[in-house]
């Protein structure tokens, strides 16, 4: 017995996820260029952990393992999480975060398609709350600090916690541009003074702004190939721009220009890759606009007035909670039920 429709588009979930993974590649390539290959190690670690945890959880939940492992969704969570945490972190940090994301944030909620929260951001939140010290050891862009680790030295540190003789973590890591800005603003310096520091580039952080360009490029590919709709990235970046612009215009000495907010931290990554996670974002277009605008406001507030180095993760999680309500109140009008023309 055959049931209609008998034909379907070939593109499946795993192909979609694969395209998203591919879209991350330009950003990752630039990451390696500016910060060295350590990020590849954490991506690999996260991938292995994600697949292992996924398989284990599927087995425990009596679900078929092979088709779900092939859907690439666990890999995507792993990559997004690895990109959110310092590459030069001890190996167990990545492993704990990824395992938590997959086991708790994804599978305990019912697995693929059922998670209320973005799993990668749950993993990030757990790590930054539990291990704040390790989570702020950001590797400095190449050429900015005196001491640089070779790849094998990086591996030694990641897996064995060993640094070359005479070196301390402080010599090779730096606070992020967002963090530095916050710290120095507290020291009563102005934005203009702070931006003279070598850590800053043209619009964002030195190096990190280029990585953001890479993610923007990948994000535009996702838009062009209709993997994501424009609503979330446009509403998120647009709202972030407007909010930052208002503050910047009011007090340029203490509030940075809006483009800095775009090109530092995880704003671009969030706009195209994190907030657009279909499972944990609204299904209605109007809902997407509200969701993204809310996330932009929260990102700004956390960055500028909050205690965490970046606000994208918590903004995402807080807006994830609102999704069912947003969707309920933004239902589009059904054909034949529209206002009389």
């Amino acid at each position, binding site marked *: *017995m*055959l*049931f*209609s*429709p*008998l*034909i*379907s*588009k070939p*593109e*499946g*979930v795993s*192909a*979609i996820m694969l395209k998203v993974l591919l879209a991350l590649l330009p950003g990752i390539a630039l990451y390696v260029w500016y910060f060295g290959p350590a990020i590849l190690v954490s991506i690999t670690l996260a991938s292995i952990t994600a697949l292992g945890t996924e398989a284990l959880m599927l087995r425990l939940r009596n679900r*078929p393992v092979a*088709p*779900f492992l092939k*859907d690439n*969704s666990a890999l995507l969570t792993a990559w997004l999480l690895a990109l959110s945490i310092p590459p030069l972190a001890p190996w167990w940090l990545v492993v704990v975060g990824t395992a938590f994301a997959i086991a708790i944030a994804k599978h305990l909620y019912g*697995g*693929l*398609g*059922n998670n209320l929260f973005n799993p990668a951001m749950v993993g990030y939140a757990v790590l930054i709350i539990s291990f704040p010290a390790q989570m702020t050891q950001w590797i400095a862009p190449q050429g900015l600090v005196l001491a640089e680790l070779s790849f094998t030295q990086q591996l030694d540190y990641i897996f064995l916690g060993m640094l070359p003789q005479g070196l301390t973590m402080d010599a090779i890591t730096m606070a992020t541009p967002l963090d530095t800005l916050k710290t120095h603003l507290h020291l009563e310096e102005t934005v203009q003074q702070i931006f003279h520091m070598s850590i800053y580039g043209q619009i964002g952080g030195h190096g990190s702004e280029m990585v953001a360009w890479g993610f923007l490029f990948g994000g535009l590919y996702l838009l062009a190939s209709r993997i994501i*709709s424009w609503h979330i990235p446009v509403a998120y970046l647009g709202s972030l721009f407007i909010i930052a612009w208002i503050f910047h215009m009011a007090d340029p000495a203490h509030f940075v220009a809006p483009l800095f907010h775009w090109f530092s931290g995880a704003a671009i990554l969030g706009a195209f890759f994190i907030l657009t996670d*279909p*499972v944990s974002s609204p*299904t*209605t277009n109007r809902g997407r606009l509200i969701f993204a605008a809310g996330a932009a406001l929260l990102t700004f507030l956390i960055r500028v007035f909050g205690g965490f180095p970046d606000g994208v993760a918590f903004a995402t999680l807080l807006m994830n909670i609102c999704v069912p309500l947003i969707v309920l109140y933004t*239902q*589009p*009008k*059904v*054909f*034949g*039920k*529209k206002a009389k*023309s």
Partner: protein
Amino acid sequence: MKKLYHFHGGIHPPSNKAQSTQLDIARTPLPSKLIVPLHQHAGETAKPVVHAGEHVLKGQLIGMPDGFVSSAVHAPTSGSISAIDMQLIAHPSGLPNLCATLIPDGKDEWVERKPIANYRSHSTAELQQLLRMAGVVGLGGAAFPSDIKLRTGKQKITTLILNGAECEPYITCDDMLMRERAAEVVQGAEMLRFMLDADHVLYGVEDNKPEAISALQQAITASVPILQQNKRHEVVAIPTIYPGGSAKQLIRVLTGLEVPSGKLPTEIGVQCFNVATACSVYRALAHGEPLLSRIVTITGNVRQARNYEALIGTPIGELVELSCTLPDTNGYIMGGPMMGFSLPAVHVPMVKATNCIIAASEHLFPPPPPVMPCIRCTRCVEVCPADLQPQDLYWFAQSREFGRAQAFSLFDCIECGACSYVCPSHIPLVQFYRFAKSEIRAREHDKQLADQARERHEYHEQRIEREKQEKSEKLKAKEKAAQTAKLACSQPLTSQQQAEQAGLEASRAHIRELAQSSVEHAKD
């Protein structure tokens, strides 16, 4: 150029129409037997008016319309009725239905036909009755009796739409009909326009059928003498997008109007007929020929796909053999690949609604990949022509939250299958909606029965109660009568007695008053 409008969503599946438009429409040879179902239309089954063993002529009535929504059924050729019994028919349920089996005598001898010379001199009601008795039903797929659709009551119809969109892949019967019989379509359309008293006629044809469009245009130009002035006929090439041929979507594209949810197109002054229906209206009125045959596309896994004019009741097995099915055929679909259904058996007869038979094979329609969970990607939302939220409806259907499914407009779903087509998780979404709809209908039916039972029970109780009351009232009346009779017998009261009684009454009232005030006092 006429301004066209859009409906939301839609998809572009591979059309696969070229295979069956290479050759012209062929007439089928007389089949060995004809199985004519008495229920081929929406509504009530026609009542058989012939009996087994009877000889019938081509076009002779064998099923009388029974009920308001019903239509006549005729003998497609001359021969003898061998049986009137339950037979398997082309229905997704696979349940048998009442059919008349006819063994053709090979003479194809007509019953007396009564063509109408000038339909404009007849009343609309008369013409409707003629169509009903000619068994004319919608040939687009729903097989709704056409005469009912012409009964528009007081509603003024401005636009008559002729549906030649034919948006489903594979199907080309309307395309070929428009190419070869455009003149009949236009004349039938004018008859329909006359009966509806519509202001103008729009032919909606998808722009992937240029031959059909130009054939219709030529036919309209040629028919100018028979058309009424100021009642414009216009062919409109509409964008090829599935489901652009769905009535509500086609109306939207051509007029910009939306048929209100749960209402008929007549509500907004529009009525819609399939082009093939118009053709059979013309044959019925101008030639007195009831609906005995239709054009059907035989395509898919066959050697030579083609359109055939086949008699209603032809066993589908005999029909597909004309196109030589290939050996790896694993089933037959009636209708298109988007909305069609699997035939329960190959020997079932074709009916008035049979527009296409697709021989299926694993190669053409590979089994769907394993179903994955919904990831709420909303590709289904993007393509839904009814502006629904398919992913939510799916969720409600699978968790049996039927109330919420209804609140989310489940019944506005036209089951076009666009959502299933694009679903990256390969969820058979439409199956879920069909399931939810049938569950809700079953529950409503149960509820109706329960309501009826309760009403009956309550009525029964009421009646008993009333009878009791009546009885007791009768009894009281009797007693009263007896008492007054008694009183009448006794002496009338003296004035003193009356005064005493009045005093007694006054003191009683006083006591009542006192009691009342004390109660109120206590309350305070």
